[in-house]
């Protein structure tokens, strides 16, 4: 039985045999192994294509959402491949063209996908310099790579560009060696703070966010929100909304949505719904919410997670006085203990 996605870490470790060895290996390989069928490809052609004009197109399943992943990934490739940052075009999250990825979350882009991407670029560089050595008739150790150009050291006229070597095609050359990643002390592009590659389209309004994308036949949904947690829907009148042209009303128990081709009409339809809710009696208010959260907190390091009442309700003044000597087990924060 192979581990599949959806297993928690503990169950995965048990399946994988558990023990110290597996724990030590809990890096990229183990996380990848959580879905044994889906791993990052070893063939660098899956990550990058070098056009005949020397432009490098990089494919990645890690998307840009403001954290800078478009730029940081390009920096990694520029560094390891030996090209200018400006010569890189990024293709992110296109599931038809990019290598499989689990998703963009958990600060995994740099530390999980980064090594795979860097290794791919470094391997491409090794293959390209091997080809260049053959073409230029010199041994590889005499070659210098800069800005996508391979030159014989000391002989600037004896050179060949990546574009000429790849001719825009898939590079099928195989080398026995494994490329070595550059050491941090050698970094020129990584670790620097160049202008973001996504900046021009964001300052001109050209960037397409999810809400800006229009696909033929697409509908926008607006959801009817209950006025408070625990409210139940007693009665719903959709008569007005149903009369609006192009509106679809969807109801599944207490979950109600109105759909329309444009978001404005969906919002109008939503506003026309007449809903009566049964509201639970509020047990908390602004004054009692804090103590409630403190009293019912996940204990961070308890395993398995358990909901506990840690502290008796205390007066604010008494609480402040005790602050300096919090007892063991005092919650450090609110959160599930599997987030690490």
């Amino acid at each position, binding site marked *: 039985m192979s581990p599949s996605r959806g297993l928690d870490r503990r169950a995965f470790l048990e399946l994988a045999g558990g023990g110290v060895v597996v724990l030590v290996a809990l890096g990229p390989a183990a996380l990848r192994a959580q879905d044994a069928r889906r791993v990052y490809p070893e063939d660098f052609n899956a990550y990058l294509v070098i056009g005949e004009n020397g432009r490098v197109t990089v494919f990645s399943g890690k998307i840009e959402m*403001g954290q800078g992943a478009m730029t940081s990934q390009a920096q990694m490739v520029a560094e390891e491949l030996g090209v200018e940052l400006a010569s890189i075009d990024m293709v992110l999250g296109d599931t038809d063209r990019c290598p499989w990825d689990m998703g963009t979350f958990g600060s995994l882009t740099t530390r999980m996908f980064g090594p795979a991407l860097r290794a791919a670029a470094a391997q491409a560089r090794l293959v390209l310099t091997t080809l260049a050595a053959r073409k230029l008739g010199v041994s590889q150790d005499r070659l210098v790579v800069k800005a996508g150009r391979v030159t014989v050291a000391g002989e600037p006229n004896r050179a060949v560009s990546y574009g000429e070597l790849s001719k825009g095609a898939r590079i099928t050359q195989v080398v026995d060696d494994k490329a070595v990643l550059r050491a941090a002390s050698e970094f020129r592009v990584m670790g620097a703070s160049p202008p*973001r590659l996504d900046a021009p389209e*964001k*300052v001109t309004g050209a960037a397409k966010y999810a809400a*800006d994308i*229009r696909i033929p036949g697409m509908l926008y949904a607006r959801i009817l929100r209950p006025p408070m947690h625990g409210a139940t829907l007693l009665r719903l009148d959709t008569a007005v909304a149903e009369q609006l042209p192009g509106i679809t009303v969807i109801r599944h128990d207490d979950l109600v949505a109105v759909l329309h081709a444009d978001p404005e009409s969906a919002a109008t339809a939503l506003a026309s719904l007449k809903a009566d809710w049964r509201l639970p009696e509020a047990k908390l208010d602004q004054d009692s919410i804090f103590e409630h959260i403190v009293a019912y907190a996940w204990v961070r390091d308890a395993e398995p997670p358990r909901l506990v009442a840690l502290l008796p309700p205390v007066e604010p003044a008494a609480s402040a006085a005790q602050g300096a000597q919090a007892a063991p087990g005092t919650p450090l924060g609110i959160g599930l203990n599997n987030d690490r």
Partner: protein
Amino acid sequence: MKSSIQFALNGWPVTLNTDDDRMLLWALRTDLELTGTKYACGEGICGACTVVVAGKAVRSCRTALKTVAGKEVLTIECLARDGKLHALQQAFIEHGAFQCGYCTSGMLLTAYVFLRENPKPLREAIVAHMERNLCRCGAHQRIVEAIASASQAPGTSS
């Protein structure tokens, strides 16, 4: 009320036959397919939908179409001219004045109007003026720096 509304959009004459109680934001995004103007809070609080109407920065999500009839409307799509970025856009890039960029259109147009009226603002004035434009990524410090550097205030121009 259904009517024929005419206004100048980014220098071009526009005629819309539609309900003039509709908000400018949706006419821009849906009818005119200019999606650089962003819908965020929908209540005029955050400033992401800011456009320029008759020289003033307005919240397009709370601006009825009938109020822009006959006026000049500018959106983020016209800030760069002839393929050249506006000094504010250039400054936002150089200062990394955004992360996700969703508030950026509104930030830029708010700052654009502000600098036209206050070419040499004190930093405090920039902060005070930009206070009603929200950035959830937390780029405010860089936004203020970018606006200062794009202004003509001494010692700040880039």
